[in-house]
Structures are given as structure tokens and as C-alpha cells.
């Protein structure tokens, strides 16, 4: 375990070394990486205004990069290709641990700065307890690294006494699709964040009134924004200020709206301790890094 950790550190250091040298270079664009929560096209559409705004405010070219898959995205994280990165809580916690990414802010979505891992079923499914999911098909959003959709939901299953193998585990490309698929009865339950159900791209597609939250975790800080520790503190702070003050002016509000966000709030690493606990409960002390 240690050996594997060590190799990871070395590889990471080797990969980021050239970037360190050029990150502060005036002409090098700042790379903003967005995890594939949505498809690439939508992601670009949502965050292009922010990118343009950052570029304007930083007086540097800011480029947006996203990937089609988490593997590819995680590869870029590992290589520290992103100067600013927006990802889920699990990836932040691991990247913090492995690559020292520093959280500077977190989302406020649907006027909520927190989110809880949830298990959602159809009201007409006849399932009333989490333990009733034994033998059922549970669709989780994204992958086993999805904080709320998988880890939070799995944590709820474990707490209900269901172990791996007691149910059929399936994955959709992202959390909204788990809810939509469950609505279309392609799974008996969906593992997802509690607020996902209320996103426009969910509630505009299905009648969420036919769904119910079977169980959910404590409310936890929303998706984080982190920066490469290669960035200078000044730049980090400047970026943090730009992001967390968007809601204070019209242009910023438009940018937030475009990104389907209520706000971007200041966040610190301690805001993610609850997440670490749950991850540890599910994956153990190594946070599941060995399975990445």
C-alpha cells in the first residue's frame, strides 16, 4: 500500500514538474478542469461564461477542459493538468491526499450549500426501507467514486445491514440518469444526491412526484472548487475571490445562472471531514485509492 502510494507521488511529481515552471508564466493559459458531471457539450455551454470571466479578471487566458469519462478526467488530475479543478468531494479528498489540491470554494446549488447522499425509489415500488432493497437492482450515478451517488448511498446500505452482493450494483453515467432510469423502472433504486432530483435536467424530464427518498446521509458540503498547489498564493486567492464574489454583481450572477449554480461559497478542507468519515466507512482507511 505504501509502495503504491509512493509510486503515485513520484509519478505525480514527475508529471507536474514542467507545469510548475510554466504555471506562473504570463502566457500560459490557466486550465480549468470540470469533472464529467454532465456531457461535454453541456459542460462547455454552462461554464464558458465563467471561463471568459476568469480570463478577463485574471487577464490571462483561461481554458476549459472536461472529459468524456472519469478515468480520463482523473488521469488529468493525477497529472495535475488542471490549475483550477471542479470535481466531486471524493476526488477532492483523494486529490488532496495524493496531489495536494487545495479547496478554495464549494457550490451552492438550488439554494443549498450542502448535499446528502440518498437512496431514491419509485413511490409505487412497494419498497419502504433500505433493507427492503435486498436482491434488488440499485443504480448508482457515475462510478464508485461518486461521493453522494455511490459512497453516500453505499454508506446508507451498509448501515442498513446490506453488504456488497446483497443487491445488484449498476452504474449510470451520472446521478441525474440514475434517477431518470429508476423513474423509467430500469432499476429498483437510485443512489444519488438528494438535490439531484430537483435539478432542471431531471425534473423537466420526469415526474419527480412519483419518486421518494428512501434514506439519506447527513447534509455535507457541496461540490468543491480546488486549485493546483502549484499556483501562487496570490493567484489562488485572486481566483477564490473572483469565484466567491460572483453573486455580488450582475455579471457574476449571470455567470452563476449560466452554470446552474446558486452561488460559489468559500470552503476549507475541514468542511470535508464528514465526507472523509463516510468514505473511510465504505472504503476503509486508504479511502479506496488502491482501487482507483
Amino acid at each position, binding site marked *: 500500500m505504501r509502495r503504491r502510494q509512493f509510486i503515485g507521488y513520484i509519478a505525480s511529481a514527475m508529471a507536474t514538474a514542467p507545469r510548475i515552471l510554466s504555471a506562473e508564466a504570463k502566457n500560459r493559459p490557466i486550465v480549468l478542469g470540470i469533472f464529467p458531471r454532465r456531457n461535454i457539450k453541456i459542460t462547455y455551454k454552462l461554464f464558458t461564461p465563467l471561463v471568459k470571466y476568469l480570463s478577463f479578471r485574471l487577464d490571462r487566458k483561461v481554458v476549459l477542459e472536461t472529459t468524456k469519462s472519469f478515468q480520463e478526467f482523473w488521469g488529468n488530475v493525477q497529472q495535475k493538468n488542471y490549475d483550477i479543478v471542479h470535481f466531486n468531494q471524493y476526488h477532492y479528498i483523494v486529490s488532496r491526499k495524493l496531489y495536494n489540491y487545495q479547496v478554495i470554494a464549494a457550490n451552492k446549488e438550488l439554494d443549498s450549500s450542502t448535499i446528502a447522499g440518498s437512496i431514491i425509489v419509485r413511490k409505487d415500488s412497494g419498497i419502504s426501507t433500505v433493507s427492503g432493497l435486498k436482491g434488488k437492482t440499485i*443504480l448508482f450515478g457515475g462510478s464508485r467514486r461518486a461521493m453522494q451517488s455511490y459512497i453516500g448511498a453505499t454508506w446508507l446500505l451498509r448501515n442498513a445491514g446490506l453488504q456488497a452482493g446483497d443487491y445488484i450494483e449498476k452504474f*449510470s*453515467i*451520472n446521478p441525474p*440518469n440514475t434517477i*431518470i432510469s429508476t423513474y*423509467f423502472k*430500469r432499476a429498483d433504486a437510485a443512489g444519488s444526491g438528494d438535490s439531484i432530483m430537483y435539478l432542471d435536467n431531471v425534473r423537466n*424530464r420526469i415526474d419527480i412526484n412519483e419518486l421518494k427518498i428512501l434514506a439519506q446521509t447527513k447534509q455535507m458540503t457541496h461540490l468543491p472548487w480546488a486549485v493546483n498547489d502549484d499556483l501562487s498564493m496570490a493567484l489562488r486567492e485572486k481566483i477564490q475571490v473572483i469565484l466567491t464574489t460572483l453573486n455580488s454583481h450582475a455579471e457574476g450572477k449571470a455567470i452563476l445562472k449560466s452554470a446552474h449554480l446558486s452561488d460559489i461559497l468559500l470552503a476549507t478542507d475541514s468542511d470535508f471531514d464528514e465526507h472523509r468519515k463516510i468514505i473511510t466507512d465504505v472504503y476503509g482507511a486508504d479511502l479506496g485509492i488502491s482501487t482507483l
Partner: protein
Amino acid sequence: MKNIKKNSLAGQFFILIAVIMVFAMVINAFVQYSNEARVINKSLNERVKSISELLASVSVESLLTFDYVTLDSYAEFTSKQKDVVFAVVVNKNGIPLTHYLNSENPYINVILDKYSNITIKNIITLLHDNPSILFHKTPVMFEGDFLAYALVGLDLEPYNKESIKTLWQTIFITVFTGIFVGGAIYLLFKDKIFRPIEVLTAGVKNMTRFEFDDKISIKGGGELVVLAELFDGMRLQLKSAIEKRDAVMQELSVLNDSLEERVHERTQELQMLNTKIAHEAMHDPLTGLPNRILIAEQIQQSIYHVKREKDSLAVMMIDLNNFKDVNDTLGHPEGDKLLVNVAERLADVIRESDMVGRLGGDEFAVVAPHVNESDAVKVANKILDNLQPSFALADYTLKVGASIGIAMYPEHALDQTSLIRLADVAMYEAKASKSGVCVFHPELDKYTALRLTLMDSLHNALETKQLHLHYQPQVVIGDNKVISVEGLIRWKHPELGWVFPDQFIPMAENSGLINLVSEYVLECAFKQWRRWQDEGYDIQVAINLSARNLVNPELPKFVAELSERYSMKKGGVKAEITESALMNNPDQVIEIMNDPGMQSLTFSIDDFGTGYSSLSYLKKLPVVEVKIDKSFVVNMETDDDDANIVKAVIDLVHNLGYQVIAEGVERKEIFELLTLLGCDKVQGYFLSNPVPADDVLEKIQKIELELS
């Protein structure tokens, strides 16, 4: 072009060409349209199929990865393709797995405006019913497993509009081209065909109006010029023929007028002739009175009228007394004059509403409607009174009585035939009873029935020898010997018993049977004479011949045959002929009496003193004897006038050189008086009644014994 008339050949030609062109090109346009529509339809089917299949193929991954958001983006992308109304992915139950619908699409927009809160599934169901949307459903499969359906609707409307627009453009171009080509063809043919035909048509129209002066000609060459020349030749021939015809027609018109005038004259003549014939058919030519037919018709009409008015009607039959004697003695011309005079008096005496007619001979009839029996008798007596004055003929003045029988409707009969018959019966009764007028009563009809029965039986009587001769002896005064007998006919009817001559001889006279009866009597006389001759008795047999016998040209031949058959000697049979029969047609009677066939007979004038005999004829007659009428004899012993007449007749006859015989001698005093007056023979019941042949000889012996 604008001079084209719709009904002209040119017009029809133009219209025909244009119509054919337009029709052909419109058909072509429709065929093209159909082909294009088929190709477009096929292409659209392919397109919607390919879009549907494309959506299905890209949906596989999203469905496998539960990526409905991406799936929805595919649906959105597909929906935004040109003419795509919607593109959805549905599960096996038809539940849409994508939610995107283009709300700006007109079809969807209409539905959304109409229905609030409508589901995508229901929107698609409604769109499915729209014929303008082409659907295609492609199953989304992955390694043989069914995942969903990709359902795509393609809007056909733009293609349909484009097709219709293209079709109308083609039709417009087609119609324009058809009219243009038709017009061009017309212009090409106008001078070559239509103009010459117009000239020919005008020429023929002139001819149909009998106008032949305008020459028919066409410039140029070709068949139509030849045709025009032929038409012109026909024009000239027709002109000549019409002129000739008009001349003939003029002559015919004159002849026709003459013919019509003659026909009119003949028609008038025929009408007059028909009127005359109709009058003659209904009227007696001698008196001008209605004849039997018209009288019968009048009775019938009168019956109709009086029946309606519940009234009565009298039919009178009038018969002149002794008119036959007038004809016999004075001749038919005088008889006819008398009838004309009688007719005039009858016409004078009747009412305007009555009708008098002549039925034949001396028989007249009067039809008097609306009179009862009493009035009818008064009318009849008035008629008799009017006939009472003497009639002045050419050489004579005559008194003529009449007998009138009356039958009443409805008391006696209900139809005209019966009324005439019953009036006739009553008339005979009036004549028999000499009462002048007799109204019919049922008893009279019995006698009529008897007469009819006798008439019917007379033929049979002749054939079955029911007729017999009884003989009455004739005595020669002075010698008191019987040398002759008069054969008097008797009829022993098997049912009626003895029937006397006055009951059936008049009927025989009227019916023509008298010749047969007379021949029968002659044969009996000849036969009886021969029998007595053979027995040694020379007894002359006298018989009576009627006036009809004496105008029968067959009589001499019959007598000659009898004479030869019975070896008759002259005078063996004596024929008694009444004075009136002799005087009726004396020349013809004398001719027959002198016929050689009659030589075996001697002749006697019967009933002398009643027939207005002409002395000149008496002298010429080949008679040997004259018989004084018994009306002078029967009372002569008490009536001096009769005695004087008898004496005068005896003297006259003797002076003419004939013998005299008196009949009707019924008493001894008469017999003695006749003896004193110098009569030659007598005959009567004082001496003997007529007896059968077998009793004659015995009766003769008895008479001769009594007189001796």
C-alpha cells in the same frame, strides 16, 4: 382567331386540337406528378427510416449506460432536423424515454395550445393520427436484446405543397401549350381548309334558300377547288331544274284550282244526294209521309219521352175500306192519287206533336203522344170525319171509309213493335166489325193468334190433303135438272175442325199461297169431273179463280197439263171469275182466258153487279155465263129494287148472249121469282147446301125428284 365561331368547323377543329393537346398534356402532367410523388414518397420513407435508424443506433449506448440526458440530447438533435416533427425514444410500453419535443413545430404547437398538461405520449398519439406526418419506428437493439423504440415523425406537408405547386405549374404550362398549339394549327389550316369550306358553305346555304345567282368559286388549286367547281355545276343544274319545276307548279296550281272547284261541286251534290237518300229512306215516296222505319223510330222516341213524364201514347193503324176495289176498278194511278189525298187529309187533322205515316198499300199510322185512350178515340173519330167528304179524282168522285185500330202505351204494350202489331189487330177488328174505330183489348189478340196459326198450317194442309171440295148443285130452271155443281173449298183442320174459306182465303191471297190453293182446287175439280165421267155422269164442275190467278202466266200451262191428264172435254170445268178481278186488268185477263192452254175451260163472271163492269169489255170476254151477286138475290122477293136490278141484269146478259145464274137462292119464293124473270140457272140453300163429292149424286137425285 377572334372570328372563330364555336359551332363552325374551324371552331370545332381548334377546340378539338386544343382539347386533345390539353388532355394529353394534362394526363402527362398527372403521370409525371404521380411518378414524382411516388419517388418523393419513397425518398421520404427512406429519410424517415434513416433518421429513425440513426436515432436508434446512437441511442444504444445511452440506454445501456442509463444516460437519458444524452439520449434526450440525441432526440433534441434529431428533432431539429429539417421537416422532423418529433423524434423520441420510447420503451416497449410506448412511454417516452426522452422528453424533448420541439414546441415551435406547428403541429405540436397546435396540440399544446389546445390541451394543457398533455403528456408527450398523448401528443405523439395525436400526431400519429395526422395524415400529413410520416412515421417510422425503429427498434433499438443491443446484441439481440430489445432496448427501446426510436420513433420519428416527418412532416409531409412541405413536400405535398411543393408537389401540388409543381402540378399546377405543369397544368398551367400544359393548358397554355395546348391552346397555343391548337391556335397555331388553326392558323396553318385557316386559308387552306376553313376559308374554302366557308365559301362552299355559303354557296350551299344560298342554294338551300333557292338563291342560285352567286357563283361558287375558290382560288388556287387542289381538291377543294375541284369540289367548288362541282358545287357550282350543281348550282346551275338546280337553278335550271327549279325554274322548270316552278313552271310546272304554276300549271299544276291552275289545274288544282279547277279540280278543287269540281270536287267542291261534287261534294255539294253528294251532300244533297245523301240528304235526299236519307229522306227517302225514312219517307214514303208517293205521299211524302214518314215510312214504316221513321214511324217505328218516332214511336220509340215518343215512348222514351212519355215514359220519363209518366204519360201515355197512342198508336193508330188506319186502313182504307175497299181500297183494293178502287185499285182493281180504277187502276193504280187513280189509287195512288187517292192515297195522296188521304195523306193530305190525315196530315191536316193531326196535332203538330203527332206524326202520320204510310206503312204500305192503303195502311197508314198515326203516333199521338201525350193522349189517353179517350182522347185517342176522339182523334180517331176526327180522322174518320175528315175522310168522310168525297175525294175528287180525275174522272171520278169517291167516298172512302177507313178502319182505325188503337193501341195504347203503356196499357197495351211497352215497345214499338208490339204497339204496331196490337194496333193492327185492333184495326182488323174495326174493319171486321165495321165499327170504324176499335181500341185494342186482349181478346182481339186471340183471333190474331188464330190467323197466324192458320197461316202456318196452310202449307201443311196443302201437302196433307186437308183441303176438300164440297159441291153445291146448280139447277137449270125449266128442266129442273142439275147439270153442274160449284166446287167450294173446305178445310178440315185436325185441331180446329172445319175452317171456312173467308177465314183463310184472304190470308192466302195476301201471302201468295192463293196460286197453290187454286191449283189444288183445279186438280180436285178435274179429278172429280173425270170420276163422274167414268161413272157415267156428265156433271160440269165450277170453281172460283182469284184475280191473282188470272195474272199468273203459269196458269194456262197448268190447266193444259190437267186437261191432258184427265182427258178433259171443253166445258167440263167452268172457271168463275169475279167481276172486280176481271175489271182490275181486263186486257191481261182476257189474254190468259184466250190462251190455248185454257181452251178446255169455260168462264163465268162471278158476283156480277158489284164490279163496275165496262160493257165494252163484257162484250169481249170469252164467257158463257154471268152469275148475279147474291146481295141482289137474297132479298129480292121483298125488295123491289133488288128485283128490278136482277131483272135488268138478266135482260142485259141475255142481250149480250150469255146465260144467267143466280146464287143465294135460299127460299122457294126467290126460286119462283127468278123463274118468272127468265133466269137460266139457280143455286142456293133452298136447293142444296154444299155437300161432299160422295153425296153429290144422291143430292142431285133428290133435288130433281123434289122439283119434278
